[in-house]
């Protein structure tokens, strides 16, 4: 079973270690593929890491005119192939999550590819390795999508277009307002 990113928004402390780890990775040219967003600047200091959501039907790859963005067999959506990418920015317009960026100097798109060099060999992605609070975890897909101790979301409705992603987001429990790690109890189910 393929492993996916699981991101628990509640645990993020905004340290930006994931961005640093991503920048330092070989081949990333000090351009982070991971973004840390302030959720509501001025109101709260809450932040959340935003990696590639690795959609089941990636709009970026389907909009690419030269098919530079490819999906691997285990579902990871790769960054643009250096030979093919023409920096047309179609993917940046197509992606509803705003993940692909274009390096204007080198005229090439860059985005998170789930550290495919590492994950294909069984290692977790760099952002998972460096996250000090376990905000970003690397779990089995089925396990992450069936999390019992927390509400998770992996289907996103953009005005009627439902996009299913492989990256799973754990969202705050607004029913009981419990946070952190919890034992699975009967009343939650």
């Amino acid at each position, binding site marked *: 079973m393929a492993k996916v990113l699981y991101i628990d928004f509640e645990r993020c402390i905004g340290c930006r270690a994931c961005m640093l780890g991503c920048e330092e990775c070989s081949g990333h040219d000090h351009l982070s593929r991971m973004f840390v967003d302030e959720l509501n600047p001025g109101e709260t200091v809450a932040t959340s890491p935003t990696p590639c959501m690795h959609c089941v039907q990636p709009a970026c*790859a389907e909009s690419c005119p030269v098919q530079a963005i490819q999906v*691997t067999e285990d579902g990871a959506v790769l960054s643009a192939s250096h030979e093919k990418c023409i920096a047309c920015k179609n993917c940046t317009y197509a992606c509803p999550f705003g993940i692909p960026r274009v390096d204007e100097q080198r005229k090439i798109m860059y985005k998170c590819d789930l550290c495919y060099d590492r994950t294909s060999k069984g290692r977790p992605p760099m952002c998972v390795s460096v996250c000090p609070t376990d905000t970003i975890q690397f779990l089995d897909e089925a396990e992450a999508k069936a999390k019992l101790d927390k509400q998770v979301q992996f289907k996103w409705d953009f005005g009627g277009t439902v996009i299913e992603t492989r990256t799973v987001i754990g969202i705050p429990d607004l029913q009981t307002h419990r946070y952190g790690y919890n034992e699975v109890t009967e009343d939650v189910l």
Partner: protein
Amino acid sequence: MIKRFEKYLRDISLNIRRETELDMNRRGFVAASLGLIAVFFLSSIPFVAQAYRKTVEEKPDRIKIAGPDELRVGDSKTFAYPNPNDPAILVRVSEKEYRSYHIKCTHLQCPIYWDKTSGKLMCPCHNGFFSVEDGSVLAGPPQRSLPSIKLSIKKDGIYAVGVIHGTHGGKTV
């Protein structure tokens, strides 16, 4: 069903799966194009066969068009052959020689008549002239000779037995 069809369309139009990347490279595209050409070719075979059968079936009947001395030398007679909408003319050019042609002018299909004084077949619309000897164009806008009708002259009359289609510009075959 609709979802599966959409997935199929996505699969054939989007080449984003890494494991199938080479199925849709340039070579695959060329192979698919050649396959499409082959499909078109094969699908045209029934139509070709039908058209061929039609041409084979078109062996015109043998009909009697005039009596043995119905026409005097230099006279003509119109008839229709092989179908009622194929008007034709029979001309007796000498004691023993007859000529017969379709009279739809090869320019714009005006009816041609036999001009006895000049000894030519003439089209009144745009002054086209045809030779009575072989149906070839002598003057005017027509580009093709007239289709001629094969005759069989018997004791009891003159029979039309077939059609020789006109050729471009020159003599009939």
